[in-house]
């Protein structure tokens, strides 16, 4: 085996498996692997918002879970809460609320957010209690491990891992470099 290695996204983005913003046929795809308890992901949240806003129809954005439970004990359940909101059609709203206050990720905090979003509270609580979305979160995590996710946040742009900083100039530079030549 050689000593060269390049990490690439092994599970392509599809509207069926992923939470997406943008057109599936957009020329640029950016996938974020994130952890709701990770402060660096919290800092990256407004950056992704800005990129989505700037690139419009040119970008397909997808978010996948990568909870690092060893250091972030609340991250896995928070990810399941986002999925539970997603099962009621409000994934991105919950995603934003979770990143808006990363200090409050205890179960009652998650339920309070569900109430803010006027979700079916009993269903939400039941799905968290039974870990109904654990398998989806694990599937995201495993897809990340196999793709070379190396911490959070990790971004893939058109399938290639972005190894620079998770800030606006660096991500925009990678995105511009990935625009397919006509």
């Amino acid at each position: 085996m050689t000593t060269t290695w390049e990490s690439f996204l092994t599970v392509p983005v599809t509207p069926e498996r992923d939470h997406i913003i943008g057109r599936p046929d957009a020329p640029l795809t950016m996938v974020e692997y994130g952890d709701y308890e990770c402060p660096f992901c919290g800092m990256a949240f407004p950056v992704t918002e800005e990129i989505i806003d700037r690139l419009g129809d040119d970008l397909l954005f997808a978010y996948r879970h990568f909870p690092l439970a060893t250091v972030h004990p609340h991250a896995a359940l928070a990810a399941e809460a986002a999925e539970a909101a997603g099962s009621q059609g409000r994934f991105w709203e919950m995603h934003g609320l979770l990143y808006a206050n990363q200090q409050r990720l205890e179960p009652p905090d998650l339920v309070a957010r569900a109430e803010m979003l006027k979700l079916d509270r009993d269903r939400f609580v039941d799905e968290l209690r039974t870990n109904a979305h654990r398998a989806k979160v694990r599937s995201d995590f495993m897809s990340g491990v196999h793709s070379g996710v190396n911490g959070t946040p990790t971004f893939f742009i058109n399938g290639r891992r972005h190894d620079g900083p998770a800030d606006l100039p660096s991500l925009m530079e990678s995105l511009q470099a990935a625009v397919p030549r006509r």
Partner: protein
Amino acid sequence: MQAKPIGDARSMTDLRHEAPLPTGTPAPEFDLPSGPDATLGLRDLHGRPAVLAFYPADWSPVCSDQLVLYQEIRPMLEEFNAQIVGISVDGVWCHRAFAQHRGIEFPLLADFEPKGAVSHAFGAYRGAEGVSERALFVLDPDGAIHWSYVSPIDVNPGADGILHALKDLTGREAPV
């Protein structure tokens, strides 16, 4: 017991870009402190695949993410019957505090005295900085190198290369 004497310190500092030992090479013998009263050596790794993760320093943000990630994927490594150890030039007490703080449960070996000698023997020492490279080695059960990789020092290599190498070595499928 050290793999190579390091009588001439200059020979290490001049080797700024060592090449990691390649596939097929028997891993150098070593025996390093894994704690205040214990050591761990190549012979302890025989019989199972092993991952050696050399890294520059405890506590630096990139390293911590990398080792925390390896802690997270230990169940996947166990599916390959593989063991993992981390190796840096930090001392045993530093390793202990770091491991406790980050919840790392696999052994961290101290390549502390003579400094960096084992890293150097694997071709994974940065003489100019006096730290180990961010280098990965996957050893077969007989202690031969099956795969090696040196990452740019500031880039956490993730776990995909390790899993790919273990899959190739064992013929088993990685868990998904």
